[in-house]
Each structure stands twice: as C-alpha cells, then as structure tokens.
C-alpha cells in the first residue's frame, strides 16, 4: 500500500514537472504495465569498479527492459529535454556543463544498470538524484535513449583527443553549440 502511494506520488510529481515544459506534450510517458523492471536490491548490489578479470559483472547481467524499444527511446528523449538534461549534457548527449553521454567514455560505468544508478542516485559532481523525481520506468527509458546514442560513439571525434576525456572541463570543449550543429 505504502509503495503504491509512493509510486503514485512520484508519477504525479513527474507529471507536474513535465507539465511545466512545453516540449513534454504528446503521448504518455508511462510504460506498458506488463514490463518487468529489475529489482531495487539487485541494482543497489552493483559494486563500483568490478575487479579486473571478472568475466561478467553483475551490472552487465542486468538488461534494460526498454532497450531498443522505439517508443521508449522516444519517451526517453522527451524526458532528456523536459528534465533539463539537455542543457547540461548537450543535445544528443554531447557534453556541455556535464560530461558527454554519447559513448565517448563513462565516468561511472556505461552498462544499462550503471546508467540507471547514475540517474537514480545522482553523482558527486553535480548530477542530481532523479530517483526522487522520476519513477523507475522513466529512468529506464532515459537509459534506453542513452543506449540509442551508442552509434554516435562509434563516429570519429571531430574535436580530437579531448572528446574522449572524461573530465567535464574537457567535455565542455565540444559544447552545446557544436552539438546542436550536428543535430
């Protein structure tokens, strides 16, 4: 009962937050009811920095239930704008204030579960903890959107070696402007 109330409150909060943004119009961002999401306990057991030689970390075994789902990717992209992610991480995740998210390197791990945790719990250099604002299915859709940017990471960098650096100071080199040119 309590979990239901919390979930309802989170959904309501997210709806209010989305309502504030003109670009959040369109279809509902709530996922199909049947989708089975990974359990919280499993996600929180992911160790930071798996030991070298570990064949497959627990993080790598947790799949994003929305991976490759075009509708979910579209909803994730919409959230990326509505939650103001775009003004920190750049259009298509190319980096600006925050680090690039288009596959040019991951500071806290790039598996779907690690991305989920980064969004849900926040990270020390300014990334807010979105778990307080977004229900898990919406965070997984954001992850699905980020996974969809993976192709971009295979493109040759246009800004030289700095693009691969994980420091925000260097990811800023790419800039929103450069990113938006590529849009």
């Amino acid at each position, binding site marked *: 009962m309590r979990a239901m109330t919390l979930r309802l409150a989170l959904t309501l909060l997210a709806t209010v937050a989305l309502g504030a943004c003109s670009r959040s119009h369109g279809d509902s961002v709530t996922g199909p009811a049947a989708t089975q999401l990974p359990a919280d306990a499993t996600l929180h057991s992911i160790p930071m920095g798996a030991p070298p030689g570990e064949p497959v970390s627990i993080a790598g075994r947790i799949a994003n239930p929305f991976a490759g789902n075009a509708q979910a990717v579209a909803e994730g992209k919409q959230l990326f704008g509505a939650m103001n992610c775009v003004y920190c991480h750049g*259009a298509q995740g190319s980096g600006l*204030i925050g680090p690039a998210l288009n596959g040019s390197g991951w500071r806290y791990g790039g598996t779907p579960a690690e991305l989920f945790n980064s969004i849900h719990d926040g990270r020390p250099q*300014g*990334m807010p903890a979105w778990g307080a604002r977004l229900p898990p299915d919406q965070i997984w859709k954001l992850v699905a959107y980020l996974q969809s940017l993976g192709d971009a990471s295979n493109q040759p960098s246009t800004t030289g070696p700095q693009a691969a650096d994980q420091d925000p100071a260097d990811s800023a*080199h*790419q800039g929103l*402007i450069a990113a*938006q040119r590529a849009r």
Partner: protein
Amino acid sequence: MIRPHRTLGLALLAVLAACGPADRKASSLSPANRPQPGATGATANFAPNDPPGEWRRQARDYANTRFSPLEQIGVGNVARLKMAWSFSDGIPYGHEAAPLVVGDTMFVVTPYPNVAYALDLSKPGAPIKWTYQPHPDPIAVGKACCDAVNRGPTYADGKLVFTLLDGEAVALDANTGKPAWRVRLGQPASGMTITMSPLVVGNAVLVGNSGGEMGVRGQLTALDLSTGKELWRGYSTGPDADVKIGADYHAPYPWLAGKDLGASSWPGDAWQRGGGTVWGWISYDPDLNLIYEGTSNPSPRVPAQRPGDNLWSSAVFARDPKTGSVHWGFQFTPHDQWDYDGVNENILIDGPIGGQTRKLLVHLDRNGFGYTLDRSTGRIVVAKPFAPLNWAKGIDPATGRPIVDPDKEAKVEEKVSNICPTHIGSKDWQPAAFSPRTGLIYADIFNICMDLTDHKVGYIPGTPYDGMDLTTHAGGKTNKWGEFIAWNPLTGERAWSIPETFMTMSGVLATAGDLVFYGTTDGWFRAVDARNGKVLWSQKLSSGITSQPMTYLGPDGRQYVAVVAGVGGVASQVMGSKNGFPPRGGTLYVFSIDGVSPGSGPGMLTTQGSKAPGAVYNAPD
C-alpha cells in the same frame, strides 16, 4: 650629431632602467599617470594608492583601471621581454584570474578546487611559502554554467580573501595561509556557485553570486572583513526592501521610478527564480562613497516566459558600501532576450564633457554598446556601439532604452538567424583597462553572431533554467572572432583596433610605460603601444589566455609582467571545436627584460657542476 646621441642616451636609460634596482616604495604615481599629448583628457582616481610595485586586487585600484604606474618596461625595451620563471597548478579548468603581489609575496588562487598558493618572490624561482586547500563541494563543478572558474583573490588588511565555487567566501592570514573565517553564501545543490572576485571597501567584503543559468536569484552580500559576519545583503530582484531601494534612491529615468519594480516587472513570483546574479566586477568611488555592481541575465533565458522589463537583471546598481542602500539603478538591456547580462566592469574615470569635468562610469556592455554614464546619477552621457550589432537600432536618448529591432527578437520554436552579438555579447566579463596617459579604454572584444531558437523550460532546482538553442558564427565576412580595441570613452569612438583570428578573452593591463598587454584564446600574449596600436612584442604560450595580465616590482627592483595560460570558460564552449584551438593548461608565466630574475637569466647562474667525491671519470686531455 644630436640625434645619434639622443638615441644612445635613451637606450642607455632603458638599459639602466631595466637592470638597475629601483626603490619599490618610491611613489611613481606622478608624472607616470599624467595625460600625454594627444590624450582624450580623461583621468582617474587611483585610490587606495597602493605602493606602485604592488597589485593587491584584480583591478589594482577601486576605479577598476588595471593601470600600473610602473615604467621600467616601456615601448623602447618591451621587445626584450623573456620568461623569467613559471608556475604550473595542474588544474584543467579555465583560468580567469590575475595573481596578486603584496610585499615580497605573490598570491595565486586556482580554478576549482580553489587552491591558494603564496610564492616567495625574494628567493630564486619563487618557491611555495604556503598552500591552502579548501576542498569545496565537488557538486559545484556540475552547477557552474561556464566552467569551474575563479576570477581571483583580493588582499586587504593582512588577509587574502577569495570565493569558492561551491558558494563560499574565505579569508586567510596572508602570512601563514591559516583561515581566519570561511562563510557559506548559498547552496550549490540549488544551482548557486560563486566565481567572482570580492572587493573590500573599508571593513566590508563584497561578494556576489553565480547561477543566472540555473534560476538563481542574484545577490550581493557584505561580510565583515575581520569576522566574516554578514553586514547586509541586497538582492537584484524582488521587492524594494530586498533590493535595498529606499529613501536614497533617485531614478535616472522615469521608467526606473516606482515601487517594487524588481517584483512588478515580472509575471507572478518569477522574480524569485529570476537571475540577475552578481558574478562580475565591483568598483568603488571613495568621494561619492558608492560601489558599482553589475547584474546578470534574467532567468529563464527564454524571454517568452517572463514578460516585462525583468528588473534589475542586466543592470547596474550604485550602492552605499556601508548599508547596501541603492542610490541609483540603470538597466542596460530591459527584458533581456539574448543573455546579454550587465556584469561587465564599470571603470570610473573623470573627463571633460562639453567643457566640464564630469564623474563618469565607462561600461562596455555585452549588448555591444559602450556606455559612459554619469556615475552620480546613472544617466547616459555617451552610448554608442563599440562593435557591430543588429539587435538594436540605437539607444533612445530620452529614456536610455535600446531601440530593439523586432526582427531580432527571440522566438519560441522558431529560428531567428544572425543576431549580433551572440549570447556572450560583444565583450564578456574579461575586463578592459584604462590609461590616464592616453585617456583611452583598452578591451578584448568579440565578433560573434548567433542563430537562435528558444524552447520553453520548466524550473527544476539545481538544473539549467535555460532554453536557448543556438549556433554561433563570426560576424561579417572576416572570420575574425576576436579584436583588441582602443576606445575613446568621451566620444564613443574607436581610436584603433587589432583584429584576431581567435576569440580575445583576456583581461587587459595598461602601464605607465605606454604599453597595453592582452592575450588571445589561441595563446598569444601581446604588448602593444597604447598610443597607436602597434604590436611591439608577442609570445606564444602553452595554452590559450582567458586570465588577466598584471605587473609588479620584484624585491630585486625589477619590473615583471605576469599572465596565466589556461584556456577555458565560455571561450572553450564557443570555440573549443574550432580547428587549432589549444588544449587546456594552468601555467603562470612571469616575464622580465632579458628574462632576468633572482637565480635565473643570463649571468645569474649561482651553482655549477663540481667533481663529486670519489668520482673516477677522467676526461681525456
């Protein structure tokens, strides 16, 4: 026969001046700062009249001239400038500060994590005397819009005072590096950071804030220099009581008169998230006893969400430093639609206007207009474009308001092409300098325009409240992104200019040697004849220059010029992807004539190789 002798004599004088120790305490204020033939006639008050060889605050003086009375290095010998020593801080964020020199000590404050160093200038190589590591909250790195920068410390009454990116101010004992106090002024989780350099007036440490891109409300706080205790706080938006508008206030123009304009010029309670942050420079006129403070762009950056003038964003306040009470306020860009801000430095000069000497304030605004205001009243004396612009057709002399071109107004979900200047303006925070010898203002400026599409945004604390979607390009057909200009503040005309391929975004140093120094974002550090714009010396450094050059007299009596190479900030955001843009860095370079300093330079080697005890190698004869 006379001519060669004179030349020889001048050369000898130059050599003597360059090599002979000088009395550091002797006042060289006069005639060093006297107007020379051909000057505009503008002068300045160089209070607090620090020892001529020192540099105790970022702008050197209260008037924000960045003029040094030192003249050992001049037009005749500047070509012999060479590196004397250097110091690297190893930090990859944008470097926007000048070091300070007080007595025999140089003080350096780095970008985040805002480490402070004291360097002993009396010893060879200027070794580290003490280090202070404040460990600010790393959350601030992801809240600072435009890189984790810091614009440098200030020195007063034996204390080194500076701000920390995570919204704090700190005062250290300048002798030991031990903190005297450390005060929090806001929460970085909400988006507030601090990058500005404080100014100390009397016992008041004046500290502003950053976060105009995150919906942070602008504030200027006065802290007690000895304890850090808050003396007063004036906000940039909201009711008069919050802004500190009261009986002292006199509106420069009728539209700036009225009750609670800081709230009523906004829809609803939008002023609470309205920006107008105070991240630029503060200047002070001891005669009028007024401080001058610029305010940032309004939040959100999308104007469609905040109909009204949005006072007091993109404006300047004149306040009483003891109480914060506003004496006048003037808004450069009402209802700022382009992120133009009003934070740029206000340089206080006195000059003849219509046969009368007037107390003036010179402000090259991001919006492209060079304003010369009467600093007693806030009324415009001169307002002319210092760079090409097209968002306005001019300034209405009756009201002081820009005449906006409707074709260049920002629109939601509709692209508006070629707005000039771009969001960072024709000139950003990088401060200009003033020389009383020429009466001119010298500034690094931009030639950048934008194509802009606005998207409405929702306010989520601690995230960008932004909405500007833009691409930039060089203005005109020159593909020159930068320019160094000499500006006549009494007529609103350029004296001369030097176009640069890359953005020019450094502070400027002017000296009594009739030199002006500036840097480029591709790493050139140049010395120019202040009278005619002739480049006399250039040195390519290891990174781009977005810091502020300064000059000082060493304990050895020599004049040095110092600048940090460490490109970053908004320059890297705008030009970082351009071919040839340099990588980051963080190295302080110190130059002297022939590169001489204690322990370095030609003939200065104090040690040599000697045969080690027990050495067995015998060189063949």
